[in-house]
């Protein structure tokens, strides 16, 4: 177990090391704002210089920056940048359906999901954010120790086939990241997203799929079983099902996309035969909200 943690952490750090520190941008302040190291691009309480502005009525004379004002006739006030830390909450699908890879050359979907999630966490923590899990198992904290805790928590699996997104305990106005294959019940996902949107939480949906799930290259008489074994479907001509299966998959993706648009989230479908870096880059961009 500890080996897995070590490897996972090492791989994630390797992935994370390729990016500049992630400075997530919070659009709204949460009530539980804690001062952090990263600016909000507006004036407020903080250490870093933001701008000089002319003295307005109501400003106390103490706030005048005399050094700047002495260069001219006007008085200036030195403003500082408002710095906050933000909470980011993760949910990574621990279900059995994620423990699948179609070929021994490809990683399991679950491994890929954890890798991306942890890499993003490291970036976020390095940027001063606080990262934790949804629910109450691991509340958001910052610091390197949190990376260890995250890695450990990520390596837990459940036996059920399709895990449901944990939408409880989401801190209002924070950011969230859901990583799953989203092959289970979509209504729960919808519920979670709506609840999160209600609390002003925005985030990313990362769907991790195996290439065979996208291509369905099966033929002949086949009994399909879910990884956990709870579901089975027998067909006489698997090849005939392909069209309809793909239709359903596309429909599902469209629904996820639609859902994320409605709630202000962002959605990406990632395949395990693609590079994890691409997904991480996308996650970083999405979490950063367009400020790259």
């Amino acid at each position, binding site marked *: 177990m500890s080996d897995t943690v070590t490897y996972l952490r090492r791989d994630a750090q390797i992935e994370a090391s390729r990016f500049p520190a992630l400075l997530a941008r919070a659009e709204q302040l949460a009530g539980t704002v804690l001062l952090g190291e990263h600016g909000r691009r507006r004036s407020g309480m903080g250490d870093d210089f933001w701008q000089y502005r002319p003295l307005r009525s109501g400003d106390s004379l103490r706030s005048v920056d005399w050094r700047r004002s002495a260069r001219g006739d006007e008085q200036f006030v030195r403003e500082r940048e408002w710095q906050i830390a933000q909470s980011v909450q993760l949910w990574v699908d621990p279900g059995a359906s994620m423990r699948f890879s179609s070929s021994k050359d490809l990683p399991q979907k679950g491994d890929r999901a954890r890798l991306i999630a942890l890499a993003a966490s490291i970036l976020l923590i390095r940027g001063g954010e606080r990262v934790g899990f949804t629910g109450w198992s691991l509340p958001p904290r910052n610091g390197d120790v949190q990376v260890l805790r995250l890695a450990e928590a990520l390596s837990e699996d459940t036996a059920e086939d399709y895990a449901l997104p944990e939408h409880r305990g989401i801190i209002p106005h924070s950011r969230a990241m859901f990583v799953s294959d989203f092959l289970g019940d979509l209504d729960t996902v919808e519920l979670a997203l709506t609840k999160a949107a209600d609390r002003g939480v925005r985030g990313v949906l990362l769907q991790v799929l195996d290439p065979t799930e996208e291509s369905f290259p099966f033929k002949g*008489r086949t009994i399909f079983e879910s990884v956990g074994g709870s579901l089975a479907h027998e067909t006489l001509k698997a090849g005939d099902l392909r069209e309809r299966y793909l239709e359903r998959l596309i429909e599902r993706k469209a629904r996820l996309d639609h859902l994320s648009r409605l709630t202000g989230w962002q959605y990406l479908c990632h395949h395990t035969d693609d590079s994890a870096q691409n997904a991480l880059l996308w996650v970083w961009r999405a979490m950063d909200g367009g400020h790259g």
Partner: protein
Amino acid sequence: MIMLGPLGFTAPWLLLGLLALPILWLILRAVPPAPIRRRFPGVALLLGLSDDDTVTDRTPWWLLLMRMLAVAAVILGLAGPVLNPRGEAGEQAGNGPLLVVMDASWSSAIDWTQRQQALEALLTRAERAGRPVALLRLTAPDEVRFQGADVLKTRLQGILPEPWQPDAARMDRAISLLPDQEFDSYWMSDGLARDSRAAMLSALETHGRVTVFEGPRAHYALLPATYEDGSVTLTLRRLRPGPEAEISVAAHGLDPAGNPAVLMRATAVFDPSATEAALALAMPAELRSRITRFEIEGARSAGAVSLPDDSLRRREVALLAGNENREGLELLSPLHFLHKALEPTADLLDGALGDVLPANPDVIVLADVATLSPGEEAGVLQWVEEGGTLLRFAGPRLAASDVSRDGEDPLMPVRLRVGGRSVGGAMSWGEPKTLAPFTEDSPFYGLRIPADVTISSQVMAQPDPTLAARVIAQLTDGTPLVTRKRMGQGQVVLFHVTANAEWSSLPLSGLFVQMLERLAVSSMPASPDPADLVGTIWQPIRVLDAFGRVVDAGNLPGVAGENLMGASLGPDLQPGLYRGEDRSLARNVMTPDMAFEPAVWPDRIAVEGLSRPDETPLAGWLLALTLLLLIADAIASLALSGRLSGARATKAAAVLLALALAAPQARAQEDAAAILAASEVTLAHVLTGDRQLDDLAQAGLRGLSDVLYFRTSVEPAEPMGVNLETDELAFFPMLYWPVTASQPTPSSEAYARLNDYLRSGGMILFDTRDADVASFGASSPEGRKLQELAAPLDIPPLEPIPQDHVLTRTFYLLQDFPGRYASRDVWVESAPPDAEMIEGMPFRNLNDNVTPVVIGGNDWAAAWAADDRGAPLVRMGSGFAGERQREIAYRFGVNLVMHVLTGNYKSDQVHVPALLDRLGQ
């Protein structure tokens, strides 16, 4: 056995199994293929999807068909199918004894293997039927004894054809040997027409049914070669007229080294429907004389081989006369009759004896030449000892001289009495003398003596104990006319008369020509008249067997000359090469007057051909087909059920394809690299296996190449890494070899190539990169490794680089050779010990060559190393001093490359003044 056309079945009842096939079809059709269980997370999306086609997924018809075919093939295969079975019913019906009559002549040797197979098949069938079999070979008729076919079968390999034909006498003997009982006959004919066949056939038909067996193969025969108009003419015949055919004929012989070889090959063309084709081979006499046999290529028969004899070899005869300047008296010339007699069959040489001898003629004729100079005599003596024939004619000069008067002249067979004698002339008594019949030990024995040959004058032989043995022709009164003495391998022959008609009428007669022939002075016509050969004995040297192979004659008895050409071939006269006293004669199987026509059989006789297809059991093939079908079925089933994943199959196919294509591609790549390296000056470094070091070396050489490009007229291409084991080194002017303690030692082949490289002017710069920690010679791991690496290399003695070494001035004037480290320990090939400073010269005259190695530890590559934009990769020293050191390092690199490319050019005196000026002296 059931017959279906050409197909028979040994176990026909098994064929009923085919009836089960339709049932099997139905069963197989009803059973769908077994399902595969697959783990698939997307199953959630599949729930509720029903199959369009609710009918069970059936095995596709073509797969069913394949399985059916497999089953059918098994059934058919087990039923024992035989193609073209030889039924017991048929032409050889009957249970009585069977007599196999074989011509067994050279003509049947062409397809003897097929004949043996046919005979074996026949014996097998006779064995099955329990028929006693006897064998009668007409070329060697022997007692006919009926015995079990299995007994005969064991002797099958020993039954061989003979290199002659069954002649009438042997046919008669064979007929007389036929047992007095009923039997069927099976005549394996050689296909040639023969008068004696009819008698044999009727004799066989009185005993029972006769079946004739003939091979369909085209028969070709080669007639003896003749020599006409400067070329060798070969005549080919074929048995039956047919379409145009090209037949290749080879002349075998000894090549100049004495090994058997094909000396010439030519193609004869039979015109359509012609049975004869001629071929003229123009070849020089020297080549002609080396030919040992002509043969039709691919035909294994004695009839397709022709042995040449002396008739192809024209003898070279040198004619010399004592007094030739008698203009206008042609008929009196001593050589006139010799000319006439020899011209058709020999090459005549004229000239002085000294000129003729080096040409090594076969015969030298001295007509009335008395004395030879001592030098000439010695030359002629040696020539005779080595096999020459010296033919002398008497005449007035010889009679008048003292040659061989008191003692026997070495070049005369006998001593001569003074004066000679004249008989029957105007001033003498008596009649002109005639010749006595030749004795048996004379080479002329058997020649008919014309009555009108008379001798009127001659030189007389001195009576002597050896005289009688040397006389080979004498007059009726017993005086010698022709005497002969053997010397070494040659002989000296003296005609006691003149070569013209002055002393006798012998030169006017045909006997004269025949005598010359017997003495091998003139060559024989191609096929000599048997009468000419009467009385001679010919010893076989090499004989032909029926297959046309030339074998040593061993101790076969000699053959009388009259039989040699006249009698028909047989055990006593085998075709081959026969040697007489002085020449050889070939007796070939084919002679020009021999009939070569196809045999014609009466209509009542059934004639079988060899072409009849063999009995072929098909069971094995069918079962193999079954196996193949089953394999195909397995693959197809896997593919159908989706177990054979497309990706995997594609990958396997790709691997196979890559394997097939890899070799040429690799070579093309290699070639491209070689062309690149050869088209520009290319610096190279040895790949050490340490990735980082190799990259640094590459970067270093790139930096140096850039500097060279900017500052000098050397414009190097992108440097290359060189794998010592696989790459060609010859393209590179120098190799940079960074030494690591861990790099592998090259193989001995690589060392061989490195040594070649060093000897052919290449240079290796060894860099131990440890000058910061170890001065040179002190033991560092790299230093020890360098010693190990360089031990097998062909490296001359070394010395630390002297101050006046040409490296110090090939481009820049340098005294330091720093790299990343600035150690002065750089070693080069040592100067010769006698190199001395000349007064007034700044430099010694040192090595004339490029030093093959430069050894140091300054880590030059690191100093030179530059990235793609030209920025240095490795920091050196501190501040400006470091950059200065880098600059000097570059200068050393430039000097080094210049040294490699220009050699000792800067040692040249021409530049001394300028250099002196620069040095401020």
